[in-house]
């Protein structure tokens, strides 16, 4: 039978807002049990409650990982700078890159968030490779990754027409090949990193959500640009 949620008293609210972010206080468990309020809700109140300075909390928690991921992507920018001359010659590549980057980053987010969800739901144990859900996720990501790569190539073709650049059939195949090869390699890399890092973080009793999504998107962005630059260098 579902228990009724009770109102939170002022003294409870005071206790929650006073608890330090990294500290697990027994009061949280007690209040959650007595008042039937989820741990997630109490966590949110602890972070952004009436006594907390919202902006300060956010800046303190987010700045480090934000700077790290931005700098990793900037390093990947060296790859772009080194193929600058090809860029000016082949405009379709410019149209292809943001979409390809977005697709791989998006899949990084999906893999990261779904993996965390499976971990919390107990669908992934020590023998993670036996998890049916994980196998389904991998199949889905590869299938959709392949379809997305083809879709990106078609979009690049349309975009090139919009810009007024003539694009040959062989060029469309080359762009398609770049999109498919980059996607297929990186989906595997992101998947392996997610499983390895996610399990390590989960073992340390921390929330993998906070780390997996920034890490997987940064890794995806970094390698997308590097593989892309490498392929452009090889092909052209």
């Amino acid at each position, binding site marked *: 039978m579902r228990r009724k949620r009770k109102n939170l008293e002022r003294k409870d609210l005071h206790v929650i807002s006073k608890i330090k972010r990294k500290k697990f206080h027994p009061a949280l468990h007690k209040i959650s049990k007595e008042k039937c309020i*989820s741990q*997630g*809700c109490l966590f*949110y*109140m602890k972070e*952004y409650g009436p006594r907390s*300075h*919202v*902006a300060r*909390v*956010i*800046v303190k928690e*987010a*700045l480090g990982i*934000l*700077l790290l991921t*931005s*700098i*990793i*992507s*900037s*390093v990947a*920018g*060296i790859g*772009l*700078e080194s193929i*600058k001359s090809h*860029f*000016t010659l082949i*405009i379709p590549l*410019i*149209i*292809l890159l*943001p*979409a390809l*980057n*977005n*697709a791989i*980053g*998006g899949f990084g*987010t*999906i893999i990261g968030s779904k993996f965390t969800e499976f971990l919390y739901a107990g669908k992934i144990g020590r023998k993670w490779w036996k998890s049916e*859900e994980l196998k*389904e*996720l991998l199949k*889905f990501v590869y299938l*959709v990754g392949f379809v*997305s790569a083809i*879709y*990106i190539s078609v*979009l*690049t073709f349309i*975009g090139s027409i*919009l*810009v007024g*650049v003539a694009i040959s059939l062989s060029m469309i195949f080359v762009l398609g090949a770049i999109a498919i090869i980059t996607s297929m390699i990186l989906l595997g890399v992101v998947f392996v990193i997610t499983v390895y890092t996610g399990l390590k973080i989960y073992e340390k009793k921390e929330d993998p959500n906070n780390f997996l999504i920034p890490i997987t*998107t*940064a890794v995806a*962005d970094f390698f997308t*640009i590097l593989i892309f630059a490498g392929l452009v260098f090889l092909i052209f």
Partner: protein
Amino acid sequence: MKEKLHKELADIFKSQLASLTLEMFAGVLLAISLDKILLIPSILILLPGFMEMRGNISGTMSARISSGLILGEVKPKWRKNKILKGNVLASFILVVVDSLILGVVAWAITLFIFGVSSMTVIWIALAAGILSNALQVPIVTYMTFWFFKKGHDPNDVMGPYITAIGDLLSTFSLFLLVIVV
């Protein structure tokens, strides 16, 4: 269980395709403005980090507001909203610090690896960061409230749109600033 997973993944796939279509416009804008953008040395080093920053700041902001909306701690209104105000302020602080550092990193890489020194990239990064944030914050907040009011979990659908809009606005802001400079 499998059906539920397939349904969720199908929803994600739809929003992914929509965001890819938006990304094409970011690419087209980048292609149109390429001859202007390439006039500034090291702008291509700045670009990936700048786009990453936009997506990360707006993405986490939307996720925080969504969690608050779902938990009932945040109301979907613009005025007298302490958590929303705090999030907006934090996004601007993060943008200023991150853009400055990205600009300095791009300048340093260009100087030490390519032997070219141009401080312009630092000011462009800072100004474009502030401009794109000022444009994206209201859009992201409006969309988060809208999806919530329509009964969706903004966490499930906002991600791909945020990165696509972020890329579009980042390119637009950089293009505008390069023209001004």
